């Protein structure tokens, strides 16, 4: 049976960037961008990604949404796509993206290729979660999410490998977005919105080696084992677990409910409080020895200040900077290409003191010594 590739294009993605608007979210921004002379970026990038599939295009079913949301780009790449749904041409909305993603999931595509930026990724994520392999073609102004390939061509290449069943390994990748309004005023306020299942980047992964556990499960499981061993030895200690799938694995290992995107507190291997904010954390920490466990959020290497703002300078001061444990899979660390881990807590002095060399737990009794920069 022919493989089915889903395609969603956010036609407005990227339009704000060229004209200096730092984003394209919201009707008003797009109107201003068009006024300022912005041209659509996404359609060309969609075509470029599709063309990288080469001969394979003739052997698959491309399923997409009408007009500029994929149909037009598919035809430009020489395809006759299956078209679902309906839209108001020229006035597409985030709801259209969500509806399209849901319908493509229901249609049973093997992989969803979406073209856009962080906003688009959020819409796709809220519609399909981790129920369908997906991959972003970068076209947006903001790309803080780790769900995007580096170029449209590399997205197409990777999609081809997946459809040819030459890559089956998927990994959880963060969907992040920043507050555009704050960003325009010079502040970065990033939130972690969830995770998508994306095909493993082949730049660092041999696609021929047998015997490797599929996905990150084995690696994050070994990290969880390491942390839980520490918890067993310190039953009175509080463990403040930051957001992310790597820290979530610790909660799964303990079989306790916890949040994926929030900060949870554990004592004696039991959940003490879930999804707590800064104030509640400070109350809980008062007078108690504690360890903060955080992971790298997003593709840029942040361990503080992106998606975990609850872990504020005051919270870190209460815990003590020597009681911070960073956890990350080897693949994720190596994916940084030697760039340092980053901190942006909002307090330059805390950032400076967080800098230097830190141990990063990468497996059971397995750590890296890695550089952190403010």
């Amino acid at each position, binding site marked *: 049976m022919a493989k089915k590739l889903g395609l969603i294009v956010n036609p407005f993605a990227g339009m704000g960037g060229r004209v200096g608007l730092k984003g394209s979210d919201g009707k008003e921004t797009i109107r201003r961008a068009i006024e300022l002379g912005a041209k659509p970026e996404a359609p060309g990038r969609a075509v470029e990604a599709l063309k990288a599939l080469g001969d394979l295009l003739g052997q698959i079913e491309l399923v997409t949404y009408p007009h500029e949301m994929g149909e037009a780009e598919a035809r430009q790449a020489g395809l006759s796509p299956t078209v679902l749904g309906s839209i108001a041409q020229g006035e597409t909305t985030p709801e259209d993206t969500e509806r399209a993603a849901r319908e493509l999931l229901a249609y049973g595509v093997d992989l969803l290729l979406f073209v856009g930026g962080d906003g688009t990724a959020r819409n796709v994520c809220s519609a399909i979660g981790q129920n369908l392999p997906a991959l972003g073609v970068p076209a947006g102004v903001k790309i803080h999410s780790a769900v995007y390939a580096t170029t449209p061509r*590399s997205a197409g290449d990777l999609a081809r490998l997946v459809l040819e069943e030459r890559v089956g390994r998927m990994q959880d990748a963060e969907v992040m977005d920043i507050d555009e309004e704050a960003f325009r005023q010079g502040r970065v306020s990033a939130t972690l919105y969830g995770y998508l299942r994306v095909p493993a980047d082949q730049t660092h992964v*041999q696609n021929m080696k*047998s015997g490797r556990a599929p996905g990150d499960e084995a690696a994050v499981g070994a990290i969880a084992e390491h942390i839980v061993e520490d918890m067993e030895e310190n039953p009175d200690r509080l463990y403040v677990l930051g957001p992310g799938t790597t820290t979530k694995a610790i909660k799964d290992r303990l079989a306790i409910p916890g949040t994926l995107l929030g900060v949870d507190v554990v004592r004696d291997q039991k959940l003490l409080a879930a999804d707590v904010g800064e104030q509640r954390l400070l109350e809980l920490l008062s007078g108690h020895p504690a360890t903060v466990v955080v992971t790298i959020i997003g593709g840029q290497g942040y361990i503080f200040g992106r998606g975990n703002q609850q872990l504020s300078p005051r919270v870190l001061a209460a815990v003590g900077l020597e009681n911070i444990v960073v956890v990350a899979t080897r693949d994720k660390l190596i994916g940084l290409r030697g760039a340092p881990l980053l901190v942006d807590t909002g307090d330059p002095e805390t950032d400076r003191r967080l800098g230097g060399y830190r141990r990063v737990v990468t497996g059971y009794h397995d750590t890296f010594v890695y550089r952190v920069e403010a």
Partner: protein
Amino acid sequence: MTARVRKDYQQARWNEPIVYELSLPGARGVLVPEPEPEVQAAAGDVLKALPAGMARKELPNLPEVSQKHVLAHYLHLSQETLGSNITNDISEGTCTMKYNPRINETLVQDPRFCELHPDQDEDTVQGILEIYHRFAKIIKEVSGMDDVTFQPGGGNHAVYTAASTVRAYWMAKGQLAQRNEIITTIFSHPCDAAAPATAGFKVITLYPDKQGVPDIEALKAAVSEHTAAIFMTNPEDLGIFNPRVDEFVKIVHAAGGLCFYDQANANAFLGVARAAEAGFDMCHFNVHKTFGTPHGGEGPANGAFCCRKELSQFLPVPRVEYDGKKYFLNSNYPNSIGKVRDFMGTACVILKAYAWTMMMGADGLRECADISVINNNYMLAQLEHVKGLDYAFRGNGIKRQEQARYTWEQLKKDTGVGTDDVNNRIADYGIEHYWTSHHPWVIPEPMTLEPCETYSIDDLDEYCAVIKRISDEAYADPDFIKAAPHVSASHRRANDAALDDPAQWAVTWRAYLKKHPR
């Protein structure tokens, strides 16, 4: 001059089935005659004499194939490989694929050697014991260490012997519970992390600095009262020799730890630098590659583990010793870590390596290192101009030693053709697939080449010309390279994803039938 490139190379492609698929019920390779009645009567019912639990209830599932078809099957397979000695082995970076003189193969096939048994009385095997003893002297001289064992069955095994020695050392001091961490570096051989982990240590890995050298500041942050040892390769697989290796040793010693030098890449510095002068307490050699004996599937392998006299009490037993009159085996070392392998290691490798080293002489070992480094730098100077190709930490001001790690990242960005694709294409020119890198790929789209002293300038030129040609082909017609190989036997794997899935892959026919019932 125009380099030789085998443009019209064409390998046999038999699409050879698995031998089980050739099975024809009833077919036999050898028909064993029934024993004569007298023999039968004298032996009685031998099957009845077997313990009940040992008798099979069902016949084993073996392929039923005639002699002729078995022979053809394996000849076909041999024609579908690109093994050593048939092709340009520069491909196998980190493997030190050098020529293995045929006369040494003749030596080990001599009945006077190959009919020896390791359980023979010492008096009857004085010759091979003497060769062990003499070769140990050579290795001690090459490394500067005080003692050596040849018991390990390979390089990784020698590293594991080192980890076991470190464990015994700290146990003897009563500090093993405290000294439970071993430090290594990301570009050291993976066994430098795996062997300590297997021996029960926690492992700390250092990242390189901007020059591609292990970060000395990271080392300072890593050492503590928990440091049992550092296990480091040098030069690492990038071909970069750590210019501050002695400082690393000093920092670890100051913290109380031991220092082990992984010398699997010794071809770069034979006769030039020694572990002892850099301050190391232990080191190892891959005897089977550095000292001229076959590597890989042609095996077998042997690892030499060397140490200073303070650690000598922990070496495996038995040890080959000489009392001035005769050679003998001594197991009387109460602090020994015991045996790491049967008997005394791989005697045929020691004999071949001894013969090779005596042939080379001390100056020859130095020359071997010099030529290896010159060969590598000659290739680097040509390959650095190939479009789409670069090498790791280029421009760091440190000359590469005996190998280099290249990256096809730019080619992949420009054309979508990555290192796996180039690797499939290279076989179309009669050159075996190259070594990419250990996993995971810290350097993206990697290619690691090691032109040892064996190769002539024509070999080097051929290799560089093929690489240049494939780059040109990739820029002209990427899909053609993505569909390679075209004229060699190996095909693309039909289903890579299945190879990542333990529920689907199988390494034996029996496992295959279990996972894929017919």
